[in-house]
Structure formats: C-alpha cells, structure tokens
C-alpha cells in the first residue's frame, strides 16, 4: 500500500469509483433531465434529450400545484423549530452537565430514554393530547411535536460537546458576580456555535424533508408543508403525470442540494453527529 508514492494521482481506482458514483446518482440525473420534457416524451424514451427545453413543468409546480406557499410554510416551520431547539436544548444540557451527581444523572437518563422511543408508540396518544388541548391539526401542534421530539438528540449532542469546554471561564464569570443563567448566555452559548450549526443543519434538513410526521400530526387536508402538499396533489390525480412528478421532486430537492454542494463537509458531519453514541 504505497500511499506516499502515488499521492494525488487520478488512477484507475479513482476513475472506476467516479463512474460508479455517477451511476449511483443517475436516478437523480434522470429526474432532472425528465423534468424538462413532456409526459409522452418521458414515456417514449426516458434517456433522450427533450425536443425543446421547456420550463412549463416548473411553472406548473407554482401555478397548478401552488407549492410556493407551502415552501414558505416549511421554511417558517424550520426556522421556528430550530429557534426553539437551539435555546431550550443547550440550556438543559448545560444545567444537566454542571449539576452534582444524582439529579444530573437522573435527568440525563430521562432525556436519553427519548432517543429510543419510536414514533409509532406515541402517535395516537399524542393526537388525542392535542385534541384535548384544542390545538389539533394546527401549526402550533406540529411545532410543539417537532421541538419535543428533537430535544433528546439535541441535548445529547450539546452535552457531548459541552464536556470538552473548560470550566475556568465560567468560574471567572461567577466570581465577577454573573448568575448561572447569565453565565450560560454570555459565556457558554457562544462557545457552542459549532454544535449549534450541526443542530441547525440536522433539524433544518429533517423538517424540510419530513413527510410522515407532518402528515400524521396535521392531517392530510390541513397540512400545508411542502412534502405533504406534493403527496396530496399526486394522490388526487388519476393519471400519472411523470413530468409534474419530476418537476416537483427537482424543485423541492434543489434547495437542499445547493446547500449540500456548498457545505458538504458540514452536512456530512451534522447528519452523522447523532449516530456516534
């Protein structure tokens, strides 16, 4: 394994793996290509170039499917949930990590248990709870669910990161008469920025892409988030209009793809952060 001799050479292995990678993502490329074609063209020959590159399918996404508003709703939902998570979770993690043995440990276990609970277990009791609270099928209910559901993982990520921060800074602040809450916001929170970025990427992507939980918590008719709307529209159709499906898939995947290309490293790191327990 002569790593040093052929450093940075583009050899047969690189060529082969690049080809394999391209083949691997070819379904996405096919979707992109076919989003510019008409339905008969797609059915006729999915690999051919379109007779005329047309934006009609994309126009339909916004005029026929009216996806602009749901896109905005999804963005706002992402922003709201993330804002809640990056304030509530690090505060709790800080309090847990800086606590004397017994209660801290108890709280840690209390939150860690949440990482193992599957959604199916809480699904219907949760809906019942929202009905009792009179907020069934509302954005507020979905927001509350997303935040609560995200808390255990966020607290876990923040606590792991907090263990690496030295305590001396906080002690200095305490001597200067800063309370625990003040110390947290002024001293600790700024140090947690890398962690906060991870949380933003993870949950931003997760909520934008989520279909299942939004569909169940907000119901098929009221749910105005992007993927629920796309699903509803496609399910209402009798005919398979592949051109519209492809255009929808492309439009909803472009934002995350652009961000992924720009910040690939951060994305990969953020999305695998929860796994290394």
């Amino acid at each position, binding site marked *: 394994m002569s*790593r040093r001799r052929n450093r940075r050479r583009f050899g047969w292995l690189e060529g082969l793996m690049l080809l394999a990678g391209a083949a*691997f993502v070819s379904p996405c490329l096919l979707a992109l290509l076919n989003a510019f074609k008409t339905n008969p063209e797609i059915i006729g020959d999915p690999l051919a170039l379109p007779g005329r590159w047309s934006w009609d399918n994309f126009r339909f996404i916004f005029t026929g499917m009216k996806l602009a508003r749901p896109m905005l709703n999804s963005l706002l939902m992402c922003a709201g949930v993330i804002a809640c998570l990056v304030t509530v979770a690090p505060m709790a993690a800080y309090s847990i990590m800086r*606590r004397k043995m017994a209660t801290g440990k108890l709280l840690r276990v209390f939150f860690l248990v949440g990482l193992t609970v599957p959604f*199916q*277990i809480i699904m*219907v009791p949760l809906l*019942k709870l929202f009905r009792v609270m009179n907020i069934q099928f509302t954005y507020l209910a979905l927001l*509350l669910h997303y935040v*609560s559901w995200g808390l255990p993982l966020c607290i876990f990520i923040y606590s792991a990161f907090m263990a690496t921060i030295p305590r001396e800074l906080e002690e200095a602040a305490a001597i200067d008469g800063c309370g625990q*809450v003040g110390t947290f916001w002024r001293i600790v929170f700024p140090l947690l920025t890398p962690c906060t970025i991870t949380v933003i990427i993870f949950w931003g992507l997760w909520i934008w892409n989520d279909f299942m939980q939004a569909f169940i918590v907000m119901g098929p008719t009221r749910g105005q988030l992007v993927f629920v709307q796309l699903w509803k529209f496609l399910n209402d159709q009798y005919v398979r209009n592949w051109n519209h499906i492809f255009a929808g898939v492309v439009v909803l995947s472009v934002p995350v793809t652009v961000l992924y290309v720009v910040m690939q490293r951060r994305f990969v790191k953020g999305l695998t952060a929860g796994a290394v327990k």
Partner: protein
Amino acid sequence: MSGAATRRGRGWAASLILCGPAVLLYGTFVVLPAVLGFAYSLTDWTGWTTEPNFVGLDNFRELAGDERFASAVRFTLFETWMIVLFFTFGSLVLAVLLDRLRSAKGLIRGLFFYPYILSILVVALLFKYLCNYNHGAVNLLLRSMGLGHWAQDWMMDPRLVGYFIFAMVAWSAVGFFTTLYLANLQTIPAELYEAASLDGAGPVSVFTRIQLPLLVPTVTTNLVLATIFGINLFGQIVVTTEGGPGYRTATVGYYIYWLGVKNNRQGYASAVSFTVFAALVAVAIVQVALLRRRQVQL
C-alpha cells in the same frame, strides 16, 4: 446560614429557568404519550370515539394468534436481515474502497452520500418511476435491449416487492453507514500501513489484519443502527406500496400505523408497538454485549 439558603434558592431558580422548558416540553409531548400508550395497551380503546375499557392482557393474547401480525413480523425480519447485512458489510467494502482514493475524494464520497439528504418521498417517487411496469426506466431499458421477457412488475409482484423496498432503502442510506466507517478508518494511524507495506502485505491482508479488527467498534454501531432502521421501517412503506399487494409488505411499523390511524384500534396497536419495542431493545442489548467483547483497543 440565610446567605446559603438564598444561594440555594437562586440555584433552584436558575435550574428551573435552564431545565424547565425542556423537561416540560419533552415530558408532555413525548413521555406522557408513551406512558399513555402503554396504559392504552391494556384497553380496547378505538383512539377516537368511545372511552377505553380495561381488558387486561386480552390484546397481548390476541397478538399471539394474529396472522396479519405474524406476516408483518416475517416481512420485517426479511427486510431487516437484508438491510443489516448490506449496511454492515456492503458499506464496509464501499468505505474501504473510498478510503483508498487519492484524488477527487470529496466529489466521489459526496456522490455516494447524496441520496441520504433527500426526502423519503423523493426517493420513493424516483423508485416508483424506475420500477413502474409500463413506463419505468428499468423495464424500458430491458425492452430496448431485447430483454423484454425480463421486464417485471417490480412493485406489484409479491415475490419481488420485498427486494424493491430493500433496494430503495439501501440506495438512500448506504452513504450514511459508509461515512461512519470512513470516520473510523481515518483514525487508523499511518504507521500501521507503513509497517504493513514494509512487510510486503497486499491490500487483502491489510484489510483483514489491520482495517477489519480496528473497525469492530463501528461494525457494532452500524449493526445496531441498521437493526433499529430495519425494524422501524415504516414511512418508506406508506409512500410506496401501502402494505400491498394484499398485506405482503406491511412491516410491523406499518401494521401499527394501519391499526391505530386507519383502523381505529389504538388499544391493540399500542400492545403491538410495545411488544415490538421490547423485542428491539432486547436485540440491541444482545448485539452490543456480544460485539463489545470483540473490540480491539488501539
């Protein structure tokens, strides 16, 4: 003394501000529904209209003789088996290959990770298109190559639909499991490789003697994660086959959803979900315990 008391009081107030919101939210919207769910598993609650009646362990007794549940368990185990094998060993091979790249690393790894950032609905729509009987790209390609008799109804044929689900899941998440291996591979010190090359070791013995033993911690992680992934398979079914044809592709997750949301049998659905959850926890504990012993310390 009163000073100490106020300091303690202030400590409590601070804890309440810091920890209160998290405990309140998580306690109300995750823990409470989970506990309620467990309580409902002992009742005949429909989920919507009538109030629950206590029925003891009747739900669990019904479960033992439920043919649909047995079918769901069989299908889930079939999928989990393939998923675990592929995500533990398939992505291990891919990671070792990707680790040997000397240029275009970011690009090539990025390509394999890419499907993981897509919504399951996007992945499902892509695969529904590829595998559609009349218009799907797979069948069209087969026909255009003169292999029309190989064209299949991948999504409707009961013998093939299991592989269709597996292919979809494998494609979308292989990059995730590969990345975990890659992170582990990067922690292997270069001296080990140098020593191996001085001894004239080929890539195969480097893999079996150096990389594989040092990758055991991640093998454990991936094995457990892939098992959880397989047993909780649910959303992917809702957006593709909806359990069909018949109830051939109903996983236990889908069966719980079907019982609770579509069939108004929440009491029974809770009993099913807790049984599955208990089994999952037991399997995960056994896996971790077995593999911990095989870890090599660096």
